[in-house]
Structure formats: C-alpha cells, structure tokens
C-alpha cells in the first residue's frame, strides 16, 4: 500500500466527484429535455434527431407505457443481435478483412452476439485472431453504443416511474435511444477517441505488421520467436465507447493490458474514470428527477462505500502477495506481479480490477486469474452484488434501485408505516417485480455453475483444478449473468474440439441476466409510475442520509451477495486459507 497508490486513489475519487454533478445535470438535459431544457447540442443536431425519428417512424411526443417501452427495447435488441450474428457468420464475404479472418463458428457467433447485445462483452475469442475490422466496427463497436444506450434508457424509464405521479407512461424508448446516442455517447466518444490517439492508441485499417524480435540471441522457440506479428486496426474508436459504455470488450485479447489499448498511465487513469463517469452521474440524475438530491447522494455514497472497501481489500491482498513465494526469497513487493503489467503495477491493477467489476465493464488491465485468492475474490464478489457498485451504464442504477426498493420494503416497516419510497407505497406487486429481477441472475449463476462443475464438458474447459478451477467456473457464469464480461482467464470456452456447451450456456446466462432482470423491472417502473404520490413528511421513510446509505449497503451485501457465500467458500476462501495455512497454491 504505497503513498503513490493513496495519492492516485484520492485523485481518482476527487475527479470522479467533480464530474458527477455536471454530467448528471447534463443527463437530465439529454433524457428529459422538457425538464432540463435540452442540451447545448440540441440546436446543432436537432435536424438530425428529427430525421432519425422520421426514419424510425416515431412520434417523439408520444410516450409509451411500460409494456410498449419494454417491447420496443426487446425488438431493438433482438434485431441488432441478429445483425451481429449475421455479420460474424459472413465476415469472409464482407469488406475490411485484410487478415482474411474466417467466418466465426455458430456457437461462438451466438455467444458473441448475445454478449455484445447484453452489454456483457464476454469474449470467448481473441479479437485480433478472430474478427475482421468490419466485424469489430459494425458488429461489435456498434453494439457497445447500442447496449450502453439501452441500459441508460431503461434506468431513465425506471427513474421516471419513481418520479411521476399517477402517470401511465414512462417515456419513449426510441427517443431515449436516439438522444443518448446523439447528445451523450457520440460527442463524448469522439473527444475521448481523439485523446486516446494522442496517448498512442492506433486507429487504422492496415494489415498486421511483422517485426523481428529484438533479442535474437536465444534459440528460436515458441517462447522466443524470431519475429512478432503486431496486430493493427481501428482501435481508438472502439476503446472510447468500450470504457464509457462499460462494455469492456477488448479489441485485442489482452484487452486494456495491451499497449495499443491502454498505452500510458494517463490513458489508464482516464479509462478508469470513464468507466464510472456515467454510472456515477446517474445518481445525480436520480436525485434531480425525484427532487431529492439527498437521495441521489445517499445512493452514491452506498456505491462508493462498497467500491472503497473493495479497492482496499484487493489492493491490500495484492500488496501482501503470496506467502509461499516470499518463503522462496522472492522480493515481497513482486510476489503478486504474475498477470500484471509492470507498467501499471499492483495498485493500478487492483484499482482497475475493482472498478471494472464494480461497473459491469469487464475490461481488464491485468489477469484476475493471477490475483491472490482474496484479491480475486473482490472482483468476483463485486459482480455478485448484482453489479450495483456504480455498475454498468444504466444497469448499475436500475440494479441498485431494485435493492433500494427491497431495502425500503424490509426496513421501511420499522418506521411504522407501510413501506414507502419517495411517497410511493411499495406493495405486493412491486415486491414481486423486485425479487424476480434479483432472482433471475442469481439462480442462473448457481444453476449453470453447478451444471458445469459436474459435467465432462464443464471440467474439460478448466486449466486449473481444485478451488481455483472452481473459482474460474463460478467467475465465468457470474460475469455472464452480471453482464460484466471480464474473465478469470483459464477457462477455455471455445475448445478446439468444437464443443459448444460453454458458449451456448454462457450466451443464455448473459441473456437471462440482462432481460429477465429488465422485464420485471420495467413492470415495476410502470406500476410505480401509476401510483399516487403520498406527500412527504417527517414520518416518511428517509431515503437520504447516512442511515439510508448504510441500510442500502447492508441489503446489497446480505440479500444480494451472501447468496453466494457457500460457493465463494468453496472457491477463493478455501484457496486463501490453503495458501496461507497449507503448502499449496493454485
């Protein structure tokens, strides 16, 4: 735990706090122009926005009820997913394929299409060895925008449901989709990509370049090749949205550990910041919409507390490293450097890992598989909270709001009233929606991990045995259902045998985790919107302040994450005690 680490952490938190309010206020202008008054870009791009509506045949003034909104979202997701599947299956026939990548096999294409549609960006493939530039840009990068915008739109719909009084509608999906793209994601990403290029990220359509390796002294082998192929491509444009949209799907297999994806400490810092930028600002948006900034900040504080705890545990565990290696005389500071970039070191790897798993980003600048058991537990646990520690763009907010509803329902009675969220009574229907949204991903994770842990195809994919192998399995399905997309590397999902189990199981994992959460959640939004607002008084359940933040953290941890405690015990926890108390490492 170095001084430079503390300084960087303080800097990160400070800058994050600084951008939360202005970006949150901007989100109001983007999503609810009638309240926020439109963005400064509205006059510039309004004509294009209107063309979009004309093409989509949408009347922007016509709002939808929750069913209409959800159906529009599902249709959009289905069509765009099929498009991606088609492109991947047909990439040999499509342009911009200088490396002549083959068509993507069916199960992998299905997995990838599901992955990018659900904002997961789980990658059962290596980008530079599987995808053409056309596939990367049109099939994948486009989805980075789509899925991020869908997440923000759903969050906005739910928040409108909370804020509105006896309303039948929750907004118009198409309007939200267009405005988020036009006024939020595209403008920021254009600037962000330019910044990344300035840091050294490439942006080209060139074929891969071959260089002779520098050290030619040793005999040529697989570990000492005489030449190296350097992959090229339109990277910067994809990385910008990959981070800002908490997608996390790397252009290259090494993801943000690759110098072309994350070249400098500054690019690393700004990428980490961009992951939390929108999720953090959405708490401010929440406060503005429900006219209780104290509530927005309380939600922020709950997220932040869990984030900080995660960083400190992960950083601490990685700093203390592996006791077995210390016994062998390895410099204690470097015992946990396996799987980490020397450029980033322990702190920036631990911070990046925590952020990328708090938010359902999934980009990695180090290999979580190589973390110490406790250090690796943090990313796993983060995802198992339901991706609500800031979370994915929109997804973190709506996931957290489900926990808000549950927390209020459980503890709300204790103030002596029927539970009430900002003047809206939480009744049986709302509880039903909330628990369905929480049940779906949890059950998916447990069932699929159990299935894979005792079947031949499941065990065949493992590179490690014992508790560490179990962690890999658990992590994969957790990451899928949580729509995170990061991996405990070491799991082979696309084996040379052509076995499709992992790709298909994970695809369903991701689709369930996303849509079986969103549908009950939209029902909740619709039901809340229709309710009468009970005026607030001193007797109302307080949704601002430290007490509420603590309650919210408690609910997330006890109701959300403790579900996984037995599974975690069999993975990282056992591994931790064996590493410290025994003689074995995994």
């Amino acid at each position: 735990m170095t001084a430079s680490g503390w300084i960087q952490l303080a800097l990160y938190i400070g800058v994050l706090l600084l951008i939360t309010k202005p970006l949150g206020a901007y989100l109001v202008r983007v999503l609810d122009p009638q309240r926020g008054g439109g963005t400064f870009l509205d006059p510039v791009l309004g004509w294009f926005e209107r063309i979009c509506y004309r093409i989509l045949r949408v009347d922007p003034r016509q709002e939808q009820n929750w069913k209409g909104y959800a159906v529009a979202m599902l249709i959009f997701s289905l069509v765009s997913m099929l498009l991606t599947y088609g492109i991947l299956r047909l990439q040999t026939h499509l342009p911009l394929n200088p490396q002549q990548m083959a068509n993507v096999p069916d199960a992998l294409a299905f997995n990838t299409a599901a992955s990018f549609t659900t904002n997961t960006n789980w990658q059962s493939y290596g980008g530079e060895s599987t995808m053409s530039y056309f596939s990367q840009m049109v099939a994948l990068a486009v989805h980075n925008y789509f899925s991020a915008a869908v997440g923000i739109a759903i969050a906005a719909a739910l928040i409108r449901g909370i804020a509105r009084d006896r309303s039948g509608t929750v907004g118009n999906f198409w309007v939200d989709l267009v405005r988020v793209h036009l006024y939020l994601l595209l403008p920021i990403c254009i600037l962000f990509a330019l910044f990344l290029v300035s840091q050294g990220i490439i942006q080209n359509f060139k074929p891969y370049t071959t260089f002779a390796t520098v050290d030619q002294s040793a005999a040529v082998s697989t570990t000492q090749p005489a030449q190296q192929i350097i992959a090229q491509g339109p990277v910067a444009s994809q990385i910008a949205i990959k981070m800002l949209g908490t997608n996390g799907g790397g252009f290259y297999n090494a993801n943000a550990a690759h110098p072309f994806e994350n070249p400098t400490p500054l690019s690393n810092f700004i990428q980490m910041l961009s992951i939390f930028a929108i999720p953090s600002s959405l708490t401010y948006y929440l406060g503005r919409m429900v006219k209780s900034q104290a509530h927005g900040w309380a939600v922020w504080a709950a997220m932040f507390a869990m984030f900080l705890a995660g960083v400190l545990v992960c950083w601490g565990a990685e700093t203390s490293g592996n006791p077995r290696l210390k016994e062998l005389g390895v410099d204690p500071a470097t015992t946990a450097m396996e799987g980490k970039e020397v450029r980033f070191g322990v702190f920036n790897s631990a911070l990046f890992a925590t952020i990328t798993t708090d938010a359902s980003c999934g980009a990695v600048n180090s290999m979580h598989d190589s973390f110490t058991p406790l250090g690796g537990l943090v990313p796993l646990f983060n995802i198992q909270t339901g991706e609500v520690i800031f979370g994915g763009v929109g997804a973190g907010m709506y996931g957290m709001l489900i926990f808000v509803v549950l927390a209020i329902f459980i503890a709300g009675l204790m103030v002596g009233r029927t539970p009430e969220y900002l003047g809206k009574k939480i009744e049986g229907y709302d509880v039903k929606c909330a628990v369905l949204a929480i049940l779906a991903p949890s059950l998916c994770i447990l069932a699929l991990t159990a299935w894979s842990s005792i079947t031949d195809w499941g065990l065949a994919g493992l590179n490690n045995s014992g508790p560490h192998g179990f962690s890999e399995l658990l992590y994969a399905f957790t990451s899928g259902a949580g729509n995170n997309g990061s991996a405990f590397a070491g799991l082979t999902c696309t084996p040379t045998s052509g076995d499709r189990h992992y790709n298909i199981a994970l695809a369903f994992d991701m689709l369930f985790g996303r849509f079986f959460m969103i549908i009950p959640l939209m029902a909740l939004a619709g039901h809340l919107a229709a309710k009468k607002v009970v005026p607030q008084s001193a007797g109302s359940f307080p949704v601002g302040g430290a007490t509420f933040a603590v309650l919210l953290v408690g609910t997330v941890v006890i109701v959300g994450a403790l579900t996984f405690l037995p599974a975690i015990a069999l993975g990282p926890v056992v591994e931790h005690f064996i590493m410290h108390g025994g003689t074995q490492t995994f």
Partner: protein
Amino acid sequence: MSTKARPLFDPEIVKPAIIASFKKLNPVHIWKNPVMFVTEVGAAVTTLDLFFTKSHSFVLQITIWLWFTVVFANFAEAMAEGRGKAQADTLRKSRTKSVGRKIMPDDSIQTVPAESFRKGDLFIVEANELIVADGEIIEGAASVNESAITGESAPVIREAGGDRSAVTGGTTVLSDMIKVRVTANPGESFMDRMIGLIEGAKRLKTPNEIALSILLSALTIIFIVVCITLKPFSKYAGPDVNAAVTISVLVSLLVCLIPTTIGGLLSAIGIAGIDRMVQHNVLAMSGKAVEAAGDVDVLLLDKTGTITLGNREAAEFIPAPGVSSEELADAAQLSSLADETPEGRSVVILAKKKYGIRGREIHEMPHAEFVPFTAQTRMSGLNFNGDVYRKGAADSVRKFVASGGAAFPAEIDQAVDKISRAGGTPLVVATAKKALGVIYLKDIVKGGLPDRFQRFRAMGIKTVMITGDNPLTAAAIAKEAGVDDFLAQATPEDKLALLRREQAAGHLVAMTGDGTNDAPALAQADVGVAMNTGTQAAKEAGNMVDLDSNPTKLIEVVEIGKQLLMTRGALTTFSIANDVAKYFAIIPAMLVGAFPQIAPLNIMKLGTPNSAILSAVIFNAVIIILLIPLALRGVKFRPAPAVEILRRNLLVYGLGGIIAPFPGIKLIDLIVHNLLHVA
C-alpha cells in the same frame, strides 16, 4: 367492559396453544406459510434420512430440532390466537350479563339471560330496564333512551302499532312498560360479528403481509437453490467435501438460512396487533384497518369531546373599573349557586379556589330566591336579602342593567370582545345597581394533548380540528391545543369534503364519528373509528368501533397501527440479518473436514462440525420462542421522526440481528458440545 392485559404466558392460554401447535403440523395448514412449509418438508426429509444415515445420533438431533422449529412457529400463532379468543370471550361475557323478563308460554314471567332470547320470544320491560334484544312493541308505549345507538340523548317515544314500534337491543326504557316481540337472534348483531373477527378465525392476510410473504418466499427459493447447488459444488470439490455435505447438513443449512424467524412469527404479529386494539377496547374490523392506522398522516378530530372536555369552565373574573375582584367573584358565585350546569358549577369552584369564597349551600340561605335561565331573559341568578344577582350574555345583561338605570362601562364591552376573540365565552355579572364585571368561560383542552400533537407533528402526522364554532373561537382553541389546522363552522358535508381533499392530495385520513350523518365520512376515511354509543349506520360505515366511545383514543389507534408495522419490520430485519452468523457456523463446519486449513474461519470456535451445525439449528428454533413476547407485545414505541426511529431500530434489530446469533450459537454450542457431548 374493560379487558385487562393478561400475563403473557397465561397457563389458560399456553396449554391449549401447546396442543394446537402440534395439531397445526398438518401440511394442509402449514402450506399457507411457505417458509414453514419448507421447514416441515426439511424435517420430513431428515426424518427419512434417519433410515439411511450412519450418524444416527446427529441426524436424530437435527431432526428433532427441525420439527421443533415448526412446532415453535405453530405455538407462536396458537398463542396469539388463544389470546385473541380469550379477549373475545371476555367481551362476550360482559355483553351477556344483562337479563330480560321473558313471557313464558304459560304467561308466567321469568328472568332469563339476554342471550337466551330467540326470534319470536316475548318479553316485558319497564322504566330503567334495558331492552335485551331487537324487537317490535306489541303492547304499550314508552319513552326510550336510544343514546347508545343514536348518540341523541333526548328520549323518544316508542309505541305499539305504526312505524314507531321498533326497539333496539341495548337501549333503555325511561318510563312506562311495554311488551316486545324479539325480531333478531343473539349472535347476529353487529357487535357479535365484530367479536367474531377478533378470534382470528376468519382472518385474511393483509396487503402488507402478502407483500412480505412474497419476499420471504423469494428468499426461500434462492436458498433452496443455494443448498441444492451446493451438492454438485461439493462433488466437484472432492470426496471429502462431498461426504461432509450430507442431505441432513444441507437441510440444516437451508432451514437456518430461510427466514424462519419472521416466517414463524408473521401471523402471530398480525393477530397480536388486532389483540392490542382490543386491549384498548377498540374493535378493528380487519387487520388491514390496523395497518392503515399506522399509515395515517392526517387526523380529523372533533373539537368537543376529543380535543376539549365537553364543557366550558370559568377561567377568570375580569372586574369592571371600581369593582374589586373579590366583589365580582362573590357576585358571580351567588348568581351561579342555583345554576346546575357544568359551567355554573365551574364559576362556584373558581370563586372558591381563587378567592376563597366558600360555596354557600342553598339550605343556608332560606330567603334566597333562585332565578333560572330562560330563553326570554337569557340570564340566571339569585335574589337574596333584597339584592339581585344576575349573570348572562352581554346583550341581555346590558338591557337588564339599563332597565335599572345603571351604567354599563365600556371596559366591560372591551373585556367581552377580548374574550370572544380569544375563543372564550363571556358572561357578564351584574346587580340591579351596576355591572360588576365579566366571567371568562373557556374551552378546556384535555390534559397532555398539546404535547401529544407536538410528537405527532414530529412523526409527520397532521392534526385537524373540526368544530361548529366560529373561525375566531376555533382559531383560538386550535392554537391552545396545538393542532396544525382547523375547520370552523363545519357541517358533516364540510367534513366529508375536507376528508376528500386530503385524500386527493395523497394523505391517509383517520377520523372518529358517531352520528348517522358522520357515516359517509367514516366510510370514506382510511381509518374510521365509530363510537360505540353512535348510531348503527356510523358503526357499519367505520372500520373500527371504540367500545369506550372516547374519541381521543384515535391517537392510540394510530400508535398501535404503527407499532404493529414496526414489529413486523423489526423481526423481518432481525431474521434476515441472522443469516450472517449462521453462515459462519455452518460453512466452516461443512468444509473443515476436507480443508483443515480453514479452521480460522470458525470464528466462534465451535466444538465440532456436528455441534456447530446442531447449535445453529437449535438457535434458529429457540429464537422463535424467545421472540414470541416481542411479537405479541410489539416493539417499544415512542413517537419520533422517521429518521430517528429508523436509526434506532436499524441498530437494535439490524446490527443486533447480525451480532446476537454469534454469542447465542456459541452458548448453545458450549452446552451441546461440552455438556451433552455431541461429537
């Protein structure tokens, strides 16, 4: 009719409750409670496991305690039901103590208990007797006091034939004698139906209970999947782990994790809430009504009888210039000696208390001539020793004084004005020679109310006073009582309109009422408490009846509603928070055999894996019994802002729920492991 709180574990209730808790093991009954149903299925599974397991003693003990978990939950419910039933019986007994004079077929007259009257029976009733059942007069005519039903104290004439022949059970004959034919069987009256509800037999789940059941079911489903998937996980982890994770261990883990505490106590809490209302002599029509009472944030309170005592009292004597206070007090007292109204008596008392003027008795003053109040003079007083003392409304006294040619000082007019503005009633006192001063009669706000309203305000509950007084008077009393708002010169229609306005603004409104014209508002209100002395229409329209007919009790009603909800929330939070410790007991126990290195995770240092699991299961069962008193009595209630209440309850039941099981399980383990030698 008062039903006192009985001791919590009254043997009269406990014994049948124990029997009932075993009868309730019937799965058809348990099915309605998903959490306890899963527990019972778990108990059945470990019972079956007894035939297959090699560790008989361990599985047997687990099995016994799992069955006990279900029995304990049943016991909680049976206790609450038993207490409800006991309350209902007490109420019934008090109702049936009255007797009536029945005309037997042979025309003889026998005195028999009221409940023995059946439709078609004949009885006679005369002055100062209670009419024992609803019926029709077939002979005679009588004046009847129907205030118990109508709230009107003026007697009405009931006579045979025509449309005034019906009499109502519970009313009293004031004069004459009548012969009545019974028209309704006992047990069919309104009150009887209400008492039936208290017994809990026909209790429906309230909306909040349904919502909570959904949450508890969802948690149960999650934990079922957690426990089922643990089997493949342990198979992956190796033969040692797989051997440790037996079916009985999994069932133990499952039962410990699902919210059995709140699942077992949920219905007891609901029944106890209605029960607590009964202890305050309030009959609630449904559990839903009790819950709604907790949600209420506007109270419509009638001024007279609720906020103020029914009568005004003399508060001050304001003498005219040149008149001493003593002189005025003396005259005021003399003028009031014959005035038997509460106001008149209060003048005598004030004079005595403040100026030491002894109340003179009538027999001490043989020459005194009392002048009663009449509608013409609008004054009352006394002629004594040639002196004339009068008190009355300012205008009347002015005329009286003017007729004697005496002056009526402007200061008296000012005082009269001032008192009127302050909401009081001025009475001017005069002799034939001069006006002496003014008596200030004021409404007396019931003791402690301003403080209570203040606390309600802190809880976000608005109080609105409803009065027929003019706005000036109303404002003054409202200020003194500390209500938030008032509605002056209110008619029942105004009251209903105000109620609708508040509801339209999203408020939940509680009110009391007794007259038939209150019925629409009582029906519209979220909580409508009808006075038992009120009309039948009012009682049918409200969702609660106050047997004491004390409108101030509305405040207690709200508190009981809040307490019910708090108790439910507190036990839910406690139950869920308990899981943390149970994980720490059971998970190390399951794994330590295969991975001895994880011993440090056994932070409670429990004896052996078996004793750890058993201790967690025992804790889980025993905590239900330990919390029965809390469930039945309710958590401590103190009016405070929601923020404060939440903070305190989160500390006690949230943090407490996380911490408490650690020493609890440890203690049980010490006993189980060291004293009972469970290996």
